[in-house]
């Protein structure tokens, strides 16, 4: 773990897991001594390639899997405390509803299992189905739903008990772009209401847009954890796009002196430069130099490494660049401050 954790008191952690381990048949280590903290009221993203142990960790938290070892608390109660599960909404991966239920019946059924009283279920079911855009199909059998519709329904089911903590395992799996936007809006609305959201997803662009903090898992361990800003701090820099650079030795010397590197001109004649600082003050001398030498400035922007690039870099560092590390790119690079840097010389 490289990033500093936020420092609320332990009572303020929504999730505070220590030494979580899961070994199958004394040989297969799905989780190795994972420790993870999620503060109340934040949206936390869990990343990792297939087989990294993300779903195992989520299932341990939700008591679907028994850990080999696990200490810690969920919402201030020991992990596995059954009454506490009533305060947690859960959307599992590969969600499968009983096909004979309608959407409304499914929400009502799981609401009853969460001990939500009947009147409240009735009110909240309709509200939630409307919120996730499923109201028109509420009375249709789930068997007729598309995968995206089932995911939306799953989100409604996860929220029926008005939980303090929402755990979502691949919530946007199979959901179209409009649906993903709707789900993001729901997550942000939850955060605005002070709820904690724990998201496990392959869609890094999605996470980047909503998460306050992320953890990256590899081979059953957490290899990085922190805010996206912290984790990408070292990659922050300024990027300049300008017209063709004149064959001017003083200009080139000046750029080298200011620490600016240049990439070969693109086919349209534009040249790209960058400096390894995210401070605006550091960019000013470069701008002055370029303008003094009559170079046309097209764009100046601060950039940082995207979550996707951070993820891939982390996987390479941890030696987990397996085919299973393939990640979804939908929605990637949407962050205005998160463009992938081109190779510069």
């Amino acid at each position, binding site marked *: 773990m490289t990033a500093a954790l936020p420092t609320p008191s332990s009572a303020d952690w929504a999730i505070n897991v220590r030494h979580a381990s899961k070994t199958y048949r004394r040989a297969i280590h799905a989780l190795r001594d994972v420790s993870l903290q999620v503060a109340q009221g934040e949206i936390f993203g869990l990343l990792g390639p297939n087989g990294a142990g993300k779903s195992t960790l989520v*299932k341990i938290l*939700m*008591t*679907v*899997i*028994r850990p080999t070892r696990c200490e810690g608390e969920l919402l201030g109660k020991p992990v596995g405390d*059954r*009454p*506490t*599960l*009533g305060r*947690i909404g*859960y959307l*599992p*991966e*590969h*969600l*499968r*509803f*009983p*096909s*004979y*239920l309608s959407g409304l*019946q499914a929400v009502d*059924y*799981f609401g*009853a*299992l*969460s*001990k939500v*009283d009947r009147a409240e279920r009735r009110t909240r079911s309709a509200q939630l189905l409307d919120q996730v855009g499923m109201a028109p199909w509420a009375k249709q059998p789930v068997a007729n739903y598309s995968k995206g519709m089932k995911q939306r329904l799953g989100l409604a*089911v996860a929220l029926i008990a008005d939980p303090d903590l929402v755990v979502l395992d691949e919530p946007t799996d199979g959901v179209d772009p409009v649906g993903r936007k709707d789900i993001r809006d729901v997550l942000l609305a939850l955060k605005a209401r002070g709820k904690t959201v724990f998201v496990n997803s392959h869609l890094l662009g999605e996470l980047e847009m909503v998460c306050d903090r992320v953890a990256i898992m590899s081979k059953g361990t957490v290899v990085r954890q922190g805010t996206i800003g912290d984790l990408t701090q070292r990659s922050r820099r300024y990027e300049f796009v300008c017209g063709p650079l004149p064959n001017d030795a003083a200009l080139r010397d000046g750029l080298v002196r200011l620490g600016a590197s240049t990439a070969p001109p693109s086919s349209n004649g534009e040249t790209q430069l960058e400096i390894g600082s995210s401070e605006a003050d550091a960019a000013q001398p470069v701008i002055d130099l370029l303008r003094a030498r009559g170079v046309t400035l097209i764009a100046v922007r601060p950039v940082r490494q995207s979550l996707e690039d951070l993820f891939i870099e982390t996987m390479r560092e941890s030696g987990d660049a397996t085919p299973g590390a393939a990640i979804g790119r939908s929605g990637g690079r949407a962050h205005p401050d998160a463009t992938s840097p081109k190779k510069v010389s």
Partner: protein
Amino acid sequence: MQSAALLMDSWRLLKSRKLFWITLAINFFVVALYGSVGFSPRGITILYGLKEFEVERFAFGLPLARELYLSIFSNFIVTLWLGWIAAALAIISTTSIFPDFLGEGAIDMVLAKPISRVRVFFVKYVGSLLFVLLQVATFCLGAFLCVGWRLNEWNWGLFMAIPLVVLFFSYLYCVNVLVGVMTRSTIAALIATAIFWFALWATSAAENITHQIAIFQETEVAPLETRAAELTERLAELRADGKNSENSNEFERVRGELETAMDQVVAEQGDVDTAQRWLLGIRIFTTALPKHEETINLVDRWVGKDPQRSLTDILMGFGRPGGRWSEKQRADQETREAVERRVDQERKAEPAWWIIGTSVAFETIVLALGAWSFYRRDF
């Protein structure tokens, strides 16, 4: 609230199964057939009076007519329809409940709720029994109305078939659930249940046959013992009369016959002992198993008819050996019937608490294993 939700879910599941409605439709058909049999002052009517058989002893109001009608219910319909066909349909229809319930993405949603796994397991199990409960309840209500109409008697004992048939089904279903939980495979659960059912039937048949052999051997040895006793007595008389000299032909003949008879008694008694040992061994084994046939047969005791009188006994008048039978054939047939009747009587004399108690003990152990497996398992 949570248990009610699980049961409601089971009800919705059943409603979605075509086989549930098909079985219910067949139920109505069987009840309609049962109701089509009636009694007139001259005998039996079928097809709602379209055809009449003049058999005086089954005339309306006579005790035998009542015995016949209740026997059709308990010995034929409950045993054949509910005890075999409907039970098989129920097994087929309910086998997938647990494997489907335990599928990835389905069970996660339930286990992540504030409800204990053990409670989920048992409520789901009870919910699955609803299939049979509803079918049998519907059937018994129909049969109750038929009996009321045909015999002018409101026989509440018919409703005892509901718990008994559900209990009988649960003996099979608990094995189905255990295998379903352990393997999460519908096919494996179905095959295991079929094998278990066959094994129950086979052990029951083996016990029945061994019992018959033992009783038959006893009936064989009894006349030999009588004969040996007579010969011993005769020999004593000859001695008393002073005719026991070696030259007495009579004495030698009786002594020879006695020796032969005693040898036969010893040989037959050996066979009896062997049969009894086998019977004891089989009984020790079957004690640990559920008594599926005996449980169904308890219906016979509680519908208010003579439990020792089977449907065959009542209809005997139609099927007695006729004039074409020789004396030996008639005697053999009577011996066979006597043996079967005695076996039947002895089995029916077993106390209900023993039948149900040992069966429920088996079911409890199997369900405990299933619950333990469900409780410990990672999904």
